[in-house]
C-alpha cells in the first residue's frame, strides 16, 4: 500500500471571473521512502494539488476525489483530526521561508512550538531537540540562531529552519513546494543534500514540487509532469528525462539552459563605455545594545572592471555577494544616506561618482536597468504604458504626447507586447509579460548600456528562454552593452563575453566566458559550477559535488573574505585582514589568491 494515495483529485476555485479548474482529476501514489518529483510551470496546478490534499485550500476552493494516507481518507476530515496528520506525519515546506515563518517569534520558539503542539514534552527537552535539529540541517551556531528572528537569517538559513520545523516531529512524508526556488545554486545544492539525507537516513518520503528539471532530475525516483491542472507525462525519472514522450516535456527539457549548450554571441565588443575602478560600498550596521558601535558592512569591496559597447559582462555570485549593490553603485542609485560608495565609475571617461545629481540624472539616458521581480518593479497603480513612457518623459522632456505614445507603442511591439495593452495594469499581465514591460521601459530611451539584475530569475524556464532570446536580439540590433547579473551560471553563459565571479563583495575570478567555464581556477567558481543542476538524472547522480561546507560566513566578519585563503587569515573578526590579490593566470584570466 502506498503511503499517500491520491485518486481523481479535482480542485476548482470560484472567482469573480468565473470558475477556475485548477486541478483536473489527478491521481498519484507516493511510496514510503521514495521521492516523487512534480514538475510544471507556474499555473500548472502542482501546488494546488498538494494544498488540496492537505486540506489547506483557500476558502473559495472546492475539492473532490480521494486522498488516503496509509489507507485513511483525509478529504473531508474535520480540521482537528486533520491536524493530527498535518505537521506531524505529513509536513510541508514552502517556497518563501520568510512568509511562512512568523516574523515576531524567534526561530527557536517556532521550532519548539512545531514540536510541542503535537506531543507533550518538557520545555528543556524540546529546546534540546530543536537545537539538535538545527544542527542536523547544518545551521552554524545553532544555539545562537535559536534566539534570532526570521528576518535576521539569510534565505538559505530560513529554509533550513523550515526544514527543521517540518521534520522535527518525524514525519513519513514531507511535501516540499519549490523549496529551493528562492535560493542560490550553492545553497540550493546544500538544501537538496539535506532533503536527500532525510530520504536516505530517516526513510522520509518526499514530494518534491519544482519548476526546475535539474532539481527534479537529481532527487526524484518517480516524475510527474503537469500542465494546466493535468498530468502530461509520468514515469521513472530515467524514462521521463531520457525518453520523453510528450511534446510539452520535450519543450521543457529543451528550454532548460545547460552549461553544455553551444553559445552564439551576436555582438563584438567595441569602444570603451564604462570603467569601474576599485568601487567600494559600505553600509553602516548597528550592533546589538544601546551603546553598540556601528560596524561597516562591506557590500562591495574593491571591484574593478571595464565594459565596451556591445559587450556583455556576466556577474555571478550568491545572494549577499554584492552583485546587486555593485549594479546600483554603477547606476548611482545608492542613496548617500544608506551607503558610502567610493572609487571611480567612469562613464565615457567621466567620473559619475563626483558628478552632481542633475548631471547624473541627465546621464541616465545612457544606462538603464531591468530588475529581478517584474511585478515589484512596476508601479501597481500605473498603466504599463505610463511606466514605459516614464524614462522617456523625464530623460527627454519636451516631446509631444503623441510622439511619446507612438514610441511607447513601437517599443511594446518590439519586445513582443501587444500595443493595445498600453492601458493594462501590471497585475493583469503574466510575469513574463511584465518583464517585457520592464525591458521596454529600459530600452525606450535607447540606452548604451543596460544592467539586467537577475532579470530572468523569477520566470518559468520556457519564458526565461524567450526573454534571454529577446535580450540577445535587442543587443544584436542596437549594439547594447550589457551587465547581466545572475546566480544562474547556465543563463549567464548564454549571453556573456566575459564573466566575473563575486564572493562577499570581492572578485574571485574573472575571465572570458569560454575560458572561465572550461577552466575554472578558483575553488569557489568550481563549487558554483558543480552546484548547477543538470536536467539529466545520470549526470546529477554521478556528479561529485564540490559542496561548500562549514560556516556560512557573515559579511560583517572580516575573516569571511578569506574563506579560500585560510593560511593568511588572522583569527579576529575585527582585524584588518590580508586582501587577496588577483593574479593573471592566462591572458585576461584573473584569479584571486587562494589556498
Amino acid at each position, binding site marked *: 500500500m502506498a503511503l499517500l494515495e491520491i485518486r481523481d483529485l479535482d480542485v476548482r476555485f470560484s472567482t469573480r*471571473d468565473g470558475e477556475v479548474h485548477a486541478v483536473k482529476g489527478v491521481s498519484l501514489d507516493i511510496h514510503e521512502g521514495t521521492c516523487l518529483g512534480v514538475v510544471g510551470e507556474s499555473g500548472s496546478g502542482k501546488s494546488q494539488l498538494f494544498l488540496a490534499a492537505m486540506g489547506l485550500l483557500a476558502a473559495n476552493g472546492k475539492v473532490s476525489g480521494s486522498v488516503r494516507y496509509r489507507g485513511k481518507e483525509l478529504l473531508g476530515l474535520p480540521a482537528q483530526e486533520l491536524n493530527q496528520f498535518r505537521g506531524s506525519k505529513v509536513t510541508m515546506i514552502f517556497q518563501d521561508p520568510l512568509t511562512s515563518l512568523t516574523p515576531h517569534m524567534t526561530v527557536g520558539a517556532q521550532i519548539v512550538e512545531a514540536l510541542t503542539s503535537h506531543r507533550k514534552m518538557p520545555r528543556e527537552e524540546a529546546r534540546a531537540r530543536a537545537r539538535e535539529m538545527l544542527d542536523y540541517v547544518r545551521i552554524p551556531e545553532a544555539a545562537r540562531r535559536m534566539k534570532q528572528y526570521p528576518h535576521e537569517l539569510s534565505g538559505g538559513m530560513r529554509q533550513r529552519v523550515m526544514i527543521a520545523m517540518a521534520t522535527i516531529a518525524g514525519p513519513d512524508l514531507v511535501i516540499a513546494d519549490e523549496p529551493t526556488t528562492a535560493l542560490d545554486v550553492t545553497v540550493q545544492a546544500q538544501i537538496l543534500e539535506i532533503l536527500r539525507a532525510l530520504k536516505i537516513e530517516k526513510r522520509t518520503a518526499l514530494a518534491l514540487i519544482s519548476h526546475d528539471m535539474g532539481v527534479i532530475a537529481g532527487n526524484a525516483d518517480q516524475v510527474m509532469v503537469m500542465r494546466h491542472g493535468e498530468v502530461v507525462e509520468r514515469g521513472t525519472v530515467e524514462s521521463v528525462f531520457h525518453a520523453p514522450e510528450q511534446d510539452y516535456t520535450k519543450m521543457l527539457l529543451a528550454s532548460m539552459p545547460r552549461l553544455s549548450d553551444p553559445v552564439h554571441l551576436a555582438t563584438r565588443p567595441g569602444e570603451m563605455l564604462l570603467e569601474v575602478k576599485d568601487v567600494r560600498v559600505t553600509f553602516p550596521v548597528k550592533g546589538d545594545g544601546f551603546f553598540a558601535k556601528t560596524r561597516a558592512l562591506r557590500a562591495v569591496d574593491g571591484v574593478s572592471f571595464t565594459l565596451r559597447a556591445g559587450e556583455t559582462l556576466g556577474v555571478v555570485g550568491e545572494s549577499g555577494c554584492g552583485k546587486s549593490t555593485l549594479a546600483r553603485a554603477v547606476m548611482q542609485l545608492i542613496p548617500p544616506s544608506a551607503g558610502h560608495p567610493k572609487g571611480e565609475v567612469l562613464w565615457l571617461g567621466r567620473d559619475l561618482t563626483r558628478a552632481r545629481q542633475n548631471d547624473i540624472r541627465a546621464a541616465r539616458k545612457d544606462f538603464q536597468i531591468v530588475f529581478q521581480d517584474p511585478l515589484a*518593479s*512596476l508601479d501597481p497603480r500605473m498603466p504599463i*504604458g505610463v511606466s514605459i513612457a516614464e524614462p522617456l518623459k523625464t530623460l527627454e522632456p519636451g516631446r509631444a504626447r503623441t510622439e511619446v505614445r507612438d514610441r511607447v507603442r513601437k517599443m511594446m511591439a518590439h519586445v513582443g507586447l501587444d500595443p*493595445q495593452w498600453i*492601458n493594462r495594469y501590471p497585475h493583469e499581465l503574466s510575469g513574463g509579460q511584465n518583464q517585457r514591460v*520592464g525591458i521596454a521601459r529600459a530600452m525606450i530611451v535607447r540606452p548604451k548600456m543596460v544592467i539586467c539584475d537577475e532579470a530572468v530569475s523569477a520566470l518559468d524556464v520556457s519564458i526565461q528562454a524567450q526573454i534571454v532570446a529577446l535580450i540577445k536580439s535587442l543587443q544584436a540590433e542596437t549594439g547594447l552593452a550589457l551587465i547581466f547579473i545572475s546566480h544562474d551560471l547556465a543563463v549567464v553563459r548564454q549571453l556573456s563575453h566575459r564573466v566575473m565571479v563575486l564572493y562577499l563583495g570581492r572578485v574571485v575570478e574573472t575571465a572570458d566566458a569560454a575560458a572561465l567555464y572550461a577552466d575554472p581556477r578558483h575553488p569557489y567558481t568550481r563549487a558554483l559550477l558543480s552546484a548547477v543542476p543538470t536536467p539529466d538524472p545520470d549526470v546529477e547522480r554521478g556528479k561529485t559535488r564540490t559542496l561548500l561546507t562549514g560556516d556560512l560566513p557573515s559579511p560583517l566578519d572580516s575573516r569571511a573574505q578569506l574563506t579560500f585563503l585560510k593560511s593568511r587569515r588572522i583569527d579576529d573578526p575585527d582585524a584588518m585582514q590580508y586582501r587577496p590579490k588577483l593574479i593573471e593566470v592566462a591572458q585576461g584570466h584573473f584569479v584571486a589568491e587562494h589556498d
Partner: protein
Amino acid sequence: MSWAGHSGRKAETLERAFVGRSLWADARARLFRNRAAVASMIVLAIITLMAIFAPLFSHYAYDAVDYDLVTCAPSWWPGDAACFAGGTHWFGTDAVGRDLFVRVLYGARVSLAVGVVATLVSLVIGVLYGATAGYLGGRVDALMMRAVDILYSLPFIFFVIILMVMFDRNFILLFVAIGAVVWLTMARIVRGQTLSAKQKEYIEAARAAGVSPFGIIVRHIIPNVVGPVVVYVTLTVPDVILTESFLSFLGLGIQEPLTSWGVLISDGANTMESAPWLLVFPALFMAVTLFCFNFIGDGLRDALDPKDY
C-alpha cells in the same frame, strides 16, 4: 486571475487602446461606476446646495425669535394645535421659538465648511509633509517628525485658547486651530506608509529612469499610500465636526445665534425626552452626511486601486 473576465471589457479596451490613460482618469471612471459613491455624492451635493441657499428654502431667519412658538413639534406632527397658528415649521422650533429647519441648514454651512476645509488642509499638508519626511529619510525625517511630536505634545485646548487670546475670536481661527492638529496624525500615517513604499523596487526603477525626488513622491509614493489616507480622511471629517461642537460648547467656537450641527446636537441631547425633534433632525443630517463621506471614501479607495477593479 483569468482572462475570461476581461473579455467583457474587450470592446472598451479596443476603443480606447490608442489613448494613454492615467491612474486618475481610470480612477474617475471607476468611481463613477460605484453606485454607493455616486448616490452619496448626489446626496452630499443636495445638502451642500441647501446649506448654501438656505434662505431660499424658508422665510424664517435663523435668528428670528418667536416666544409664541417655544419648543413646537414639527408642524406635520399630529397633536399640538397651538403651534400651527404661527405657520409651518417643518422641523419644529427650539426653546426660543427659532425655526429648526433653517437652523439645521445654517448649521450645515459651518459644519461642512469646517469638516471639509480642515480635512482638506490636513490632507494637503499632512500628505506632503509625511511623504517628504518618509521619502527623504535619515536626518531630515528625524527633524521633521520631532517637530510633529512637539506640536502633538501641546495640549489642544491650551493651544486654541492661546490662538483666541492672540488673534481675537474669529471664525477663521477655528479652521486654523483644528487643521493645525489634524494634519499631525495624517503626516504620521503617510510617513509610515511611505517608509514601506519607498523600499519597493518600482521606486528604484523610477530613480533609474531619472525621476526627481519630488516627481517620485507625487507620481509614485502618494498614489500608493492613498488607501489608508482615504480611510483616515473619512474618519477625520466627523471627528472635525465633533471637535468644532466641543470648542463651541466651551465658548471658543461658533457663538449664538450662529450655530452648527455639533451645537444643535449637543443642545438637542439635553432636551431629548421633552423635544426629541431637536436632536433627531440635526443628528439625521449629520449621520447622512457622514455616511456619504464614508461611501465616497470607500469608493475612492477602491477606484484608486486598479487591482480591485
